[in-house]
């Protein structure tokens, strides 16, 4: 049924009217502005991290044995991959390949969840293996756990949202013309990816 609703998108029960077009414009702009302010939130914490890091006590701080770059790189690749699959999910939707879309969406969700799992593993390793804690390890623990935790939360929200999208699309909520939800999901997921590009480079590579 969902397939059908894509195939001939502007079916009578889904009129593609001017109101939808204008509303979509508003939502799109609003959502982009929201992403911008969210970006500012991350940037402020990133600024804080770089400021503290350069406040002249040397980096990495003594007592921080190592961050496992190899593992982090592998984990990041999962997230980046999910970004690519999400992109193709949207592409497939636009071209009406419903099943491909669903599969891509599922890949995205799985990869995102995988990334979260990897981060959980890394946290446990740091906390119990290296005795690095959020509050007890000086500015390293503070900035690392705050920023990656914030990002992890964003990923978590994204995974939930994409799952909802999956169910909605299965239930045929969206059609060939009205799929702003999917566009927004893609935007958000790309945003989360890109933030991680920055965090990965400043925490593991810098």
């Amino acid at each position, binding site marked *: 049924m969902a397939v059908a609703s894509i195939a001939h998108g502007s079916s009578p029960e889904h009129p593609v009217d001017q109101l939808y077009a204008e509303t979509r414009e508003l939502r799109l702009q609003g959502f*982009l502005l929201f992403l911008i302010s969210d970006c500012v939130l991350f940037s402020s914490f990133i600024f804080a991290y770089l400021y503290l890091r350069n406040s002249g006590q040397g980096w*990495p701080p003594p007592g921080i044995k190592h961050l496992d770059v190899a593992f982090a790189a592998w984990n990041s*690749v999962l997230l980046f991959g999910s970004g690519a699959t999400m992109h*193709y999910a949207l592409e497939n939707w636009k071209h009406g390949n419903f099943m491909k879309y669903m599969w891509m969406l599922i890949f995205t969700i799985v990869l995102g969840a995988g990334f979260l799992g990897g981060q959980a593993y890394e946290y446990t390793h740091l906390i119990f293996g290296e005795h690095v804690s959020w509050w007890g390890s000086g500015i390293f623990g503070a900035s690392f756990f705050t920023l990656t935790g914030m990002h992890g939360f964003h990923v978590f929200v994204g995974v939930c949202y994409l799952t909802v999208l999956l169910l909605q699309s299965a239930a045929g909520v969206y059609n060939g013309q009205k799929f702003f939800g999917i566009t927004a999901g893609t935007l958000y997921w790309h945003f989360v990816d*890109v933030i991680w590009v920055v965090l990965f480079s400043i925490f593991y590579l810098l």
Partner: protein
Amino acid sequence: MHLDPAILERTGAIAGGIIVGIVAFYALYKDWATPGVENQVFKLMLLLLGVGAVLAILAGVGALGTFKTA
């Protein structure tokens, strides 16, 4: 013979990085002409995604990363 998990991770990172990088840049190339606000944003995001993949590869081969790996 004993296999260091780091080796697996690095290979994974490199391989995955290459795939994602190619996909990202290919998608960017394909969407280059698309109009509309969100598509411009998508292109920017894809570009950064590609950059991320490259970084992952470099980290995998050990060219980047100040912390000594395990």
